[in-house]
């Protein structure tokens, strides 16, 4: 078991290094050097040479690569060309906001998804089950930005119940305690829902399948035969076992949530990493683009690692061989 964890962690580290390498070579694949778009046409060749020397762009690619790797691993992502501030400072401001949004949608989709999945499994082939299956198909097929706009139109513009953008109201700093929390929660509802709804559909499907598998097991029949109330059988005996395979889905949904955050943050003016990324692309702010890319990849890799380890810990039946293959 321990060997599996160590192996899995080493694998994750290797993946991070490969992601870094890919990012570096992507940057160098682009036409011109990474700075070429910023040279003013009137600038003298000598100054350009100086800038290149200053940035180390005159060194051999391999040396640049090693130095770049080193500074990235230390968390030094260079300076943002647009804000003229360290990229790490920008990340420190935006990452918590992205996490707030993604964790909220994670919780939301786990709760909604598992509830619907369990209900579908228990009332198999009922109207509710069929509606869930069809709804999942539609939700998968709707563009998230369009869903966001439609919800803004309905809930913000027409009904005026929920705010349409930003993390809190203007002047919310003066609110205290419960009022501030309420204000922030209200701002969170629409973006978190839009971001999580597709994953909720996926979750419901997996939970349904997993529950159906478990409900066929002998120990469920035993529990029922013992005369336990159905609610207890479902929640204590079935759900506990059905939830285990679903843990992996949570790990797999992390790239989906982070990818979705780009569009959702942009629409709801949410000051997170996704919006930082899009704005950096508009202004060709490469250091920011590459750093966000890297951070997101690390989050995904770590998320998968945690899900894998969690899965191994949760399910006592699973042992891992040294080869990392499931027996």
């Amino acid at each position, binding site marked *: 078991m321990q060997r599996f964890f160590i192996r899995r962690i080493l694998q994750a580290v290797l993946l991070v290094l490969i992601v870094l390498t890919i990012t570096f070579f992507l940057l160098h694949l*682009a036409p011109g050097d990474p700075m070429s778009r910023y040279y003013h046409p009137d600038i003298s060749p000598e100054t350009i040479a100086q800038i290149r020397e200053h940035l180390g762009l005159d060194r051999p690619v391999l040396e640049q690569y090693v130095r770049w790797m080193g500074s990235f691993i230390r968390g030094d992502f260079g300076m943002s060309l647009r804000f003229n501030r360290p990229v790490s400072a920008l990340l420190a401001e935006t990452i918590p906001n992205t996490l707030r949004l993604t964790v909220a949608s994670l919780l939301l989709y786990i709760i909604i998804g598992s509830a619907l999945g369990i209900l579908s499994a228990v009332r198999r082939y009922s109207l509710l089950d069929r509606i869930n299956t069809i709804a999942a*198909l539609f939700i998968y*097929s709707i563009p998230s*930005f369009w869903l966001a*706009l439609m919800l803004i139109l309905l809930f913000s513009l027409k009904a005026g119940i929920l705010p349409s953008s930003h993390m809190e109201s203007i002047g919310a700093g003066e609110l205290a305690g419960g009022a501030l929390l309420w204000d922030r929660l209200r701002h969170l509802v629409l973006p978190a829902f839009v971001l999580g709804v597709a994953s909720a559909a996926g979750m419901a499907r997996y939970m349904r399948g997993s529950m159906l598998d478990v409900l066929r097991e002998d120990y469920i029949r035993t529990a029922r035969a013992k005369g336990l109330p159905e609610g207890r059988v479902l929640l204590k005996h079935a759900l506990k076992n059905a939830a285990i395979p679903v843990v992996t889905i949570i790990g797999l949904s992390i790239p989906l949530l982070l990818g979705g955050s780009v569009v959702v943050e942009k629409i709801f003016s949410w000051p997170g990493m996704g919006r930082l*990324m*899009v704005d950096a*692309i508009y202004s060709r702010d490469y250091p920011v*683009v590459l750093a966000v890319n890297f951070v997101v990849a690390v989050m995904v890799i770590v998320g998968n690692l945690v899900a894998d380890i969690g899965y191994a810990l949760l399910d006592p039946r699973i042992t891992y061989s040294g080869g990392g293959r499931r027996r």
Partner: protein
Amino acid sequence: MMDTVKSNGDCIHHGAWSTGWSRFRRNRLGVAGMAIIAVLYVVAVLAPLFTPYDPVAQGDIPRMRYAPPCPRHLLGTDKFGRDVMTRILYGSRISLLISLLAVSISVVLGSAVGAAAGYLGGPADAVIMRIVDALMAIPRLFLLLTCIALFSGSLWLVIILLGATGWMATARLVRGQVLSLREQDFVRAAEALGAGGRSIVVRHLLPNTLTVIIVAATLRIGGIILTEAALSFLGLGVPPPTPSWGQMVFEGREVLMSAWWVSTFPGLAIAVTVIGFNLLGDGLRDAFDPKQFT
């Protein structure tokens, strides 16, 4: 002798195709999906026959700007007085063209990489699959946005990038298939007869993974259409004035309250198209269940 082995392989293949097809025809949702897609392609090709208006030329802006849906403009007009329905009809060309070409690129790339990894095995396989893992760790949209930031945008660049960033899942799938197929007797026989590596992959392994690849590709198209729409929505897809659905939704964003039709209908068009491809893909998957080949 070679021929016998090959025709035998073909025979299995043929049977799978026709039984799969007859199974597919009984799947009402799958057939509905296919009908949606067929209608879309007809509309895309014959767009000028369905509308008297021009998708790009600006209309009579002072009078026709943001005209609500009416008999002459069934889905209303946009900021430049252009007919929204016309732009949606022409926009289907962009969505269908991009998704078809991009999915072809990623299928070819993914099959080549996956087949190579699966057939070569050993260290080559390990190296290739770690790179695939790493690329898959970067969420698709971030990878795409990074590439778009580095190379400036055009229709063809968007197609190439969508294809070039979407092949990894296909590679994994094909590799898995090839790994299980290469141990089978007909491949062993071909090897024993002295067939070269390339010939085995191209003539024996890939044809037997074809249905799996087609099913996976169909299921991917919807995702590609959604990604392309998201890129256009962010202003990083196909440059205007070419009508693309994502960009049309974006253009209506500022006037949601006063001219809801500008965003609403292009978004519906995206949803219907993606539903069509997903239904078709689900139907094909159920009919040509990959499990029967492994």
